[in-house]
């Protein structure tokens, strides 16, 4: 039996977006590692592109970046630019990788997070916001990357181990569901 519940899928993604938004606005500013702060916009974009990808992932990346830009003092459009491209590249391959390959998805998100963080800070350096490349890399990019990866891990763990949620997209389904070929489908998102 094919299960299609796009309303539930949307609701679950809206919940995920709300959680990331609250974490970004309320928690990230108060937890810092050196000069680095977690980027939950990147976390949301990573989850969306690794789970669904395609147009949906790209759109989520853009929106997450835009909200991040609005929350910071930097120029608007820079993070949305980077997350749009990052989400497209990550989401262009097969979907549902968090459930299928937890370690692989962590690795892929780590690559995305590092490149996006580095590109963001280098871009800020290029527009004259800093004088030292070493400071940009060591004191800003690496702490940001580490905290963001730390922020992504719980989401990836929960999604990869949960059953029944739309966000799992059928990852580790129950035996009964597997025997009936049941899968959620986010194609309509």
């Amino acid at each position, binding site marked *: 039996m*094919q299960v299609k519940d796009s309303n539930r899928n949307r609701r679950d993604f809206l919940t995920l977006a709300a959680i990331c938004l609250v974490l*970004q*606005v*309320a*928690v*990230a*500013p*108060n*937890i*810092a590692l050196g*000069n*680095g*702060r977690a980027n939950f916009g990147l976390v949301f974009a990573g989850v969306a592109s690794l789970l*669904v*990808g*395609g*147009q949906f*992932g*790209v759109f989520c990346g*853009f929106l997450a*970046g*835009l909200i*991040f*830009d609005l*929350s910071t*003092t*930097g*120029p*608007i*459009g*820079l993070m*949305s*630019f980077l997350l*749009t491209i990052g989400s*497209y590249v990550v*989401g*262009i391959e*097969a*979907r*549902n*990788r968090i459930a*299928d390959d937890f370690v692989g998805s962590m690795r892929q998100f780590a690559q995305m997070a590092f490149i996006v963080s580095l590109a963001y*800070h280098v871009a*800020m350096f290029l*527009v*004259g*916001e800093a004088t030292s490349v070493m*400071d940009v890399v060591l*004191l*800003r990019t690496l702490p*940001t990357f580490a905290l963001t990866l730390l922020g992504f891990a719980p989401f990836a763990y929960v999604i990869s181990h949960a059953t029944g949620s739309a966000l799992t*997209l*059928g*990852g580790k389904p129950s035996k009964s569901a597997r025997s009936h*070929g049941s*899968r959620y*489908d*986010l*194609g*309509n998102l």
Partner: protein
Amino acid sequence: MPQKGGATPPSTRFRRTDADGGLRICIVLVVLSLVMFTASVREGDGPGVFTTARGAWMTITTPIRWVGGAVTAPFQGLGNIFANLTADQERLSELKAENERLVARNAELEESEQTARRLESLLGLQSLYNLQSTGARIISGSTDSWSSTVTIDKGTAAGIAVGMPVTDSNGAIGQIIRCGAASSTVRLVTDENSSVSAMVQSSRAQGVLRGSVDGTLHLTLVRTDQNVEVGDTVVTSGLGGVFPKGLPLGTVTSVERTSGALYYDIEVEPLSSTESFEEVLVITSLTEDQKPTAEEVAQADKQDSASSGAKSTKSDDSSDSNDSGDGSAEQTDESAGGDGTEDESEDQSQDEG
């Protein structure tokens, strides 16, 4: 196109509604992002669509920031308590609940006591310097890793405007760089792009206090024929026209003199540390006695003109400007005490707006 079915691997079962993998929408959104980025950089901190949007966003998210600050504030001082509670749990099991309650109560009372002390200090500072000010509370730190800023819970509705200096009970901490209706962003003096006209309190040697990425302050442009000692207090000089004269900024921790150099390399430890839910004062206007006297301006001019080779450098830097960092500021007064960079002018025009 992958087919849905029982034998198909899970990762290929999902129906793709976008045959190009989202390439078209990606291109559209990338172009849109670049347009926004360009327009945002051109707009800067002046009035415009993006500034308005950011202000609205700040207003909308202020309650969330406030709650976040409230939730995380207790954990800033309770780290050791959790570590101590791991010792000998068996013997302390019946006392654990009581202990936790007392610890929590103690922390709460200590926090209240510290709050009372800070408020008293603020009132003392306000009275001592005769500051025209409004009280506010820090509700959040910097959202990004790029800038050292804090968000306070007062905005334009409370009469706050861009450019106003902010102090805590220890001294100056920064300057308002962005205002929403109910909250404002303060760029701290420790921010890499911050620079404040300052002087050594004992010798009156004048310079510019700059922030750095590692959180320390550097007092620059102090000539090597001036007298500066470790332990000296650094205060605002008031020459930039933004901060009132004489507010403490930090303490000199090291003074280095490179052979042949015109200026000292002075490291300053900031006096203030900003944490969530601490009270601050936003100075809304300066009185005449808080502005530098003509004699002090003349002294700064004299100090500046003594090293004519470095005059252009100094004139570029001598200002209380911690809201730009784009390096495009032009000095309208080339003296060390010159008020008003381009940034300042922008700020003031925003104030008027």
